[in-house]
């Protein structure tokens, strides 16, 4: 199929969906005896027009259409400017073929570098999310259930303050700490623990620490917000009945805060997997992270269709992860995006 035919079709797609919903709404049986105001009557004409224009522009021109165009582009071949729309401009899987085999046509070798980077990114992001959960849970619990109100306010301020600083600067701060002549290495050498500086950046410890550091706040807040809604009487009751502390956490707190855990983990996972700043600043020459590879498709290989395909692979992995977490916790999307 000639891919130049694709654009008008994709452009119309969301409008067709809107029309279908509109027709469905029109033909829905109305409850008898209830006079419902129309959308325009209910909001007044100027506000109604503002709502329709704003929501249409936002959801179509800023969200849906850009994504659809990116998906479409990922199935196009890389062609010089003049041949675009010409007879060679056919839909193809070659960009995905490249991800797996490292070539657009030959299937002899496997593209281990990119595939390894992809799975490492997914796996490491997962570990970072779990590590963050373990690190943040005690503080979130302490703030939500134990600490007096004044101290909670103080802690919240302390927690938010570092996040006013730019993500790149935060990564840079970690880089200064962890570089081979940074403070940590000086302390380690000075105290005689090691005699050679540890290469935190080269072996990716700095990268993982940086990603964990960058998104800790989101985990704390997801957990804090749900733990706060747990009635303290439940914990008291369990304690009075003689439950040991770890029983209280495993059988009362954790089942109750499942939505908070799910949303914290999803946010940290997504942001780590899609992070570009931390890998750029904190990774060594041999580090593998998927987003910088996507970035290079655009800015070094100048191969946009391939970049779009790589971005889509990342997006699908992230969406799959979210759906998996939702299934696992029997939750709805609304509970995560709070």
């Amino acid at each position: 199929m000639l891919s130049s035919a694709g654009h008008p079709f994709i452009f119309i797609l969301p409008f067709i969906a809107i029309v279908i919903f509109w027709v469905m709404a029109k033909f829905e049986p109305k409850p008898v005896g209830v006079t419902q105001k129309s959308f325009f009557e209910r909001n007044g004409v100027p506000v109604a027009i503002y709502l329709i224009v704003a929501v249409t522009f936002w959801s179509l021109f800023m969200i849906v259409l850009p994504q659809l165009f990116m998906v479409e582009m990922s199935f196009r071949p890389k062609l010089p400017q003049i041949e675009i729309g010409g007879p060679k401009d056919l839909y193809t899987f070659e960009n995905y073929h490249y991800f797996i085999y490292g070539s657009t046509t030959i299937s002899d070798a496997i593209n281990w570098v990119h595939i390894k980077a992809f799975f490492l990114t997914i796996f490491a992001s997962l570990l970072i999310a779990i590590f963050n959960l373990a690190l943040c849970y005690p503080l979130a619990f302490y703030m939500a259930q134990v600490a007096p109100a004044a101290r909670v306010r103080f802690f919240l301020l302390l927690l938010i303050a570092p996040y006013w600083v730019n993500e790149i600067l935060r990564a840079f701060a970690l880089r200064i700490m962890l570089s081979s002549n940074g403070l940590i290495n000086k302390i380690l050498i000075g105290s005689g623990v090691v005699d050679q500086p540890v290469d935190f950046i080269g072996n990716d410890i700095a990268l993982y620490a940086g990603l964990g550091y960058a998104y800790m706040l989101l985990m704390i807040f997801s957990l804090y917000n749900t733990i706060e809604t747990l009635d303290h009487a439940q914990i008291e009751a369990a304690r009075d009945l003689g439950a040991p502390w770890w029983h209280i956490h495993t059988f009362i707190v954790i089942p109750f805060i499942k939505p908070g855990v799910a949303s914290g983990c999803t946010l940290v996972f997504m942001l780590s997997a899609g992070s570009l700043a931390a890998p750029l600043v904190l990774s060594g020459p041999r580090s593998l992270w998927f987003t910088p590879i996507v970035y290079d498709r655009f800015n070094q290989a100048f191969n946009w269709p391939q970049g779009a395909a790589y971005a889509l692979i990342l997006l699908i992995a992230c969406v799959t992860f979210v759906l998996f977490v939702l299934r696992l916790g029997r939750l709805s999307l609304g509970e995560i995006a709070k």
Partner: protein
Amino acid sequence: MNSKTVTNVMLAFYMAIFFGFLFGPLIVMGVSAFNTSTYPQVYPIEGFTLLWFEKLLNDRDMVYGLKNSLWIGMWVVVLSVPLGLAGAMMMSQIYSKARSFYYVIVVSPVLTPGVIIGISTVVFWGDLTTTTNSRFLYHGLFMTVLGQSSFISAYCMLMFMSRLNKFDRAQEEAGLDLGASQTQVFFHILLPFLRPAIFSSAVLAFLSSFENYNTTTFAILADKTLTTVLAGRVRQGTTPAISALAVLIIAVTVVGAIIYEIVKRREDRERQARLDAAHAAELRELESIEKATHHA
């Protein structure tokens, strides 16, 4: 030693580690901005200097990027706050069978990696402006504003939704009964009610825009913002001038946070005063009714 002291010691130890991890790097960076050593370090301190700040202010790219960042941030606020408000108001009114579909679409930018939002924005506007022959719209600043606003509007929407939940429809009915038009209700009842949410979402929108890197680095094309210049500098090598920039940003945000806190407290106080006044008036009225019934 009883179990309570053990718990407290463990808690203190954990807090020390947690906040050490949180603030340690920032403190090290802050101190290194004033150290004469050309590599950003805290130990040994070779001498106190403000040279790195001077270097920073003479860095043309940084100053240029800063201007762009401020400009983009302003437009993101102008665009995202009304879009977020419209998105939130639409949520309760949209056709019920389309609602969950709509919700997934408008919340999805919050969960989509920023890199992908940047790429898709450039791809879409690149194609659209070529086919419609409006190539002037294929502009870094324009696309950055749109790309950033796609998810920042969703942040604003979530804030407006939680505020709208507290809105008492009776106020609207009262306005209508007294003869106001729907448009007047919107401007004189709903918007004043939403003012705190408008204020906080504007602040949030500006800050998210100002510090964004992932989306911006694609959408800005060949142009620069402060964060993209910064990323370039950090990749080239580590210099204390970057620490100096961090110190400036921290200083500005601390001042900003204090102002935000003061404004919020004052609003809270004013609201409390209004509530007290209303309460007092209600009491007086009750008293007078009571008196009247006594007399009768």
